[in-house]
């Protein structure tokens, strides 16, 4: 076996010590009588040891995990976004207060001059039937039974 044949077919396995016994014998025979290949193997072992022998595992910086979490968590839909806005500390107080105020003002402005009993009597007469209890027709129509209740509900 000459140098080129050794380098091409046996050197890699020889360096990794995975040659079968038969090929190992052939390799040993060549190395025993070839100073150039002996030097090559020695150099390879030195380069490998020097290059890979001292390296260690390196941990990634903390923001890498944060980036992964950001990418694997489902992005919030419009409902979650609205909820997130509503739960902001200031808004969570301001919105119900504002809404109640608006509703109160609105109810005050729409309040009729006539008393409830008069309204009831008037509406009973106009619409017919017992005002205040939903009729079958109302249920089928999905209405709340009265003009006023329909309006506010």
């Amino acid at each position: 076996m000459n140098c080129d044949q050794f380098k091409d077919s046996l050197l890699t396995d020889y360096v990794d010590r995975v040659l079968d016994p038969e090929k190992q014998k052939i390799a040993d025979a060549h190395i025993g009588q070839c100073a150039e290949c002996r030097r090559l193997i020695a150099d390879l072992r030195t380069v490998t040891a020097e290059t890979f022998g001292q390296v260690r595992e390196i941990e990634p910086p903390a923001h890498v995990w944060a980036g992964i979490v950001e990418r694997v968590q489902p992005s919030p839909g419009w409902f979650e976004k609205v909820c997130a806005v509503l739960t902001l500390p200031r808004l969570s107080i301001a919105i119900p207060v504002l809404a109640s105020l608006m509703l109160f003002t609105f109810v005050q402005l729409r309040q009729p001059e006539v008393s409830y009993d008069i309204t009831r009597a008037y509406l009973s007469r106009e619409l017919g039937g017992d005002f205040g209890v939903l009729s079958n027709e109302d249920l089928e129509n999905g209405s709340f039974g009265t003009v006023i209740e329909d309006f506010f509900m």
Partner: protein
Amino acid sequence: MQEIATDTLERAGDGDLQAFNEIYRSSAGFVYSIALRMARNTADAEEITQDVFVKAYKNLKAYEGRSSFKTWIYRIAMNTAINFCKKRSAEFKKRELREREPSPGVVSNEAEKNLFKEDAEKKLGELLGCLNEDQRACILLREIEGLDYRQIADVLKIELNTVRSRLKRAREAMIAYARQGGVKDEL
């Protein structure tokens, strides 16, 4: 990297982020180191690491313990890193043609200089710089991870003889570089 408990893998597969964090903590060092040595700069290594874990998270259900978790994550890490680096190299080559910039094979930017300021990492970076992505992947799995030829073939899904020839070429390139005096005090 230690093997991960089946229960942890199942919980993570069901979307349990805490379980997935356990997996991350046990394998992030390995994945990041591979990415760093393949890409040879920290910004790309961080991007590769994130890509690897996002892929792993999305595919945990499909994994179902068909191979060892270690082999599975090695495969995702290596393939992601190789593809990323090949894409980067192609971009650099295109730009180099236009602007005549130095190629990424040469340690050139500040991030890389920083990364390889330690002696051991510097030597490693210089030697890896003279290999192509496929050779680099094989030699890293062999010399740092200690995988045998069969395991390397399994991770990279290539033939056993391809592993052998890539290792051979990688070592030839490394020895040529070292003998030229590329790595000081080496030989």
